[in-house]
């Protein structure tokens, strides 16, 4: 059988034929759709709302925390610290592997792998790689203290009440 004679324009190779251009477009379209699909799935499985503990919550009136108090709210995984008229919330989730640290004489201590922190959450020993984060605390209009675990603030910044 005789091979069909190719048009000269295809033989030149570099020339942009209609067929080649269409192939590029369809390939681009298909591949693009694939990426968009994969990305949409990723967006889908990343929850917009969580059903567990809310990250912003009220912990009661400032009076409930007398000066010098270091109250660990285990369920909220946060420790409320009050010194004079200054109040702050320090995370009690160990920065090592996520266990709950307990309040100790010198600050915080993790029961899982022995990380130790000082009163301000700075690492003093053990495998913890970072200091415990501080969360934003503000006074809600109803006079209660609100902790926002989505907002990390600089260690040592207190709310004056």
């Amino acid at each position, binding site marked *: 059988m005789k091979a069909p004679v190719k048009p000269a324009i295809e033989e030149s190779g570099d020339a942009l034929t209609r067929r080649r251009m269409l192939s590029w477009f369809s390939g681009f379209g298909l591949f693009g759709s694939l990426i968009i699909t994969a990305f949409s799935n*990723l967006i889908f*499985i*990343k*929850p917009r709302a*969580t*059903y*567990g*503990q809310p*990250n912003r919550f009220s912990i009661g009136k400032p009076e409930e925390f007398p000066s010098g108090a270091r109250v660990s709210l*285990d*369920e909220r*995984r946060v420790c409320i610290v009050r010194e004079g008229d200054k109040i702050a919330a320090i995370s009690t*989730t160990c920065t*090592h*592997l*996520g*266990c*709950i640290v307990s309040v100790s004489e010198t600050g915080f201590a993790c*029961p*899982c*792998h*022995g990380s130790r922190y000082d009163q301000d959450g700075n690492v003093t020993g*053990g*495998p913890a*790689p970072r200091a415990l984060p501080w969360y934003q605390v503000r006074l809600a209009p109803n006079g209660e203290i609100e902790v926002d*675990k989505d907002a990390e603030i600089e260690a040592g910044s207190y709310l004056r009440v």
Partner: protein
Amino acid sequence: MSSQTTSSSWKSLVALPENIWRSIFRNPLPSSDLGRASTSFTNFFLHLHPVKVHRHSLKATFTLGLGLISFFLFFILVVTGILLMFYYVPSTTQAYDRMLDLRGTVAFGIFLRNMHRWAAHGMVAAVFLHMCRVFLTGSYKPPREFNWVLGVFLLLVTLFMSFTGYLLPWDQLAFWAITVGTSIASYAPLVGKQVKFILLGDTTVGQEALLRFYVLHVAVLPAVLSLLVAIHFWRIRKDGGLSRPEEEDSLPAETPATVEVLQGPAVVMATSPAAAAAAAPLIPKRHYGIQGLVRGPFTKVGNVPDRSVFSWPNLFMAELVVFLITVAGVLIVSLFFNAPLEQPVNVMHPPNPAKAPWYFLGLQEQVSYSAFWGGVGIPTIEVLLLLLVPYIDRKIVGVGRWFARERLLANFLFLTFVIVNVLLIVIGTFFRGPNWEFVSPW
């Protein structure tokens, strides 16, 4: 109605059982080489295998059956896993009670859970040992590079399967192992926190995490694993069967090749008149050729003297034996040892020390030295190196032999990697006590 029709109907009726049987199984139990060949490729399950297999591939001392064991353990896991799904509820309020029900009221419940748990641990070990076998026999060399890559992914998926299953009993062990494990993941730069959040569906391990792990464990990962296994098996054949030393192919055949594949219209495959008679129904319309192995140097089926034997019964019997040993092993272990079940989850009271599943304890041990390097940096480098091994070390020497002299350096490096990781796991498992301090197990 003529008597002829009646008698023919009667004959059909008499032949009914045999006809039904033969419509399902095309061949009688083979007694000739042609029969053995056609049995292999007319049966759906057997046609995954080559018609003939090299003697070297059947050596138990060469493969140790580790790939088969991994696959059969996966099979056991699928069966027991589906059965367990009938009673399990992925809910933080119910999951633990269901575990107690399995132990207390469900018939064979505790036994099925034991089988599932021990087969899972066994599979992690078997897949890892299979990787060691493949490396130490130089079987990842061209043309098998990509199958090695698939194998590395299979190891990772197996680990992830086991890890997602670990959470489902919702006891203290499960909760803290996953808390620790996902925290390790969050050490990854840039995406670490996001990965942890998507994995858990929340900032901490809770109901969302349980549901997500359940879906991954029973649907997503088994599907991925099955697909990868299918490609892995398919590639074994397309890459020319299991690896073997080149000199194996030049050895004189012990028995003359019994199958001849001729080019052209006539197909001669039988060796005796009796076999030819048995083969008669197969011959008229179609030409059955033995499907030779695909790649150049490995294609030895045909008129070349070879050392291959028919898969029926040699390979199939070997597979059956490995299957029975695997099942027996899982049954025996499940009879004598119960899968651990600790107290129900108490978020306020982490155990001291909180440990990840054993195969991640090497990782956790590394993390105790350096969070980023131990948990993310080094593991990533290790996986990348494993993936790249067949593209770096391409010289085809010492293939198909254990600890080949020519591969001293490669084997030495690989064994170092294995021993270091095993040591880390042993230290993390037995030598780490409260506060992750060094303790002696004695």
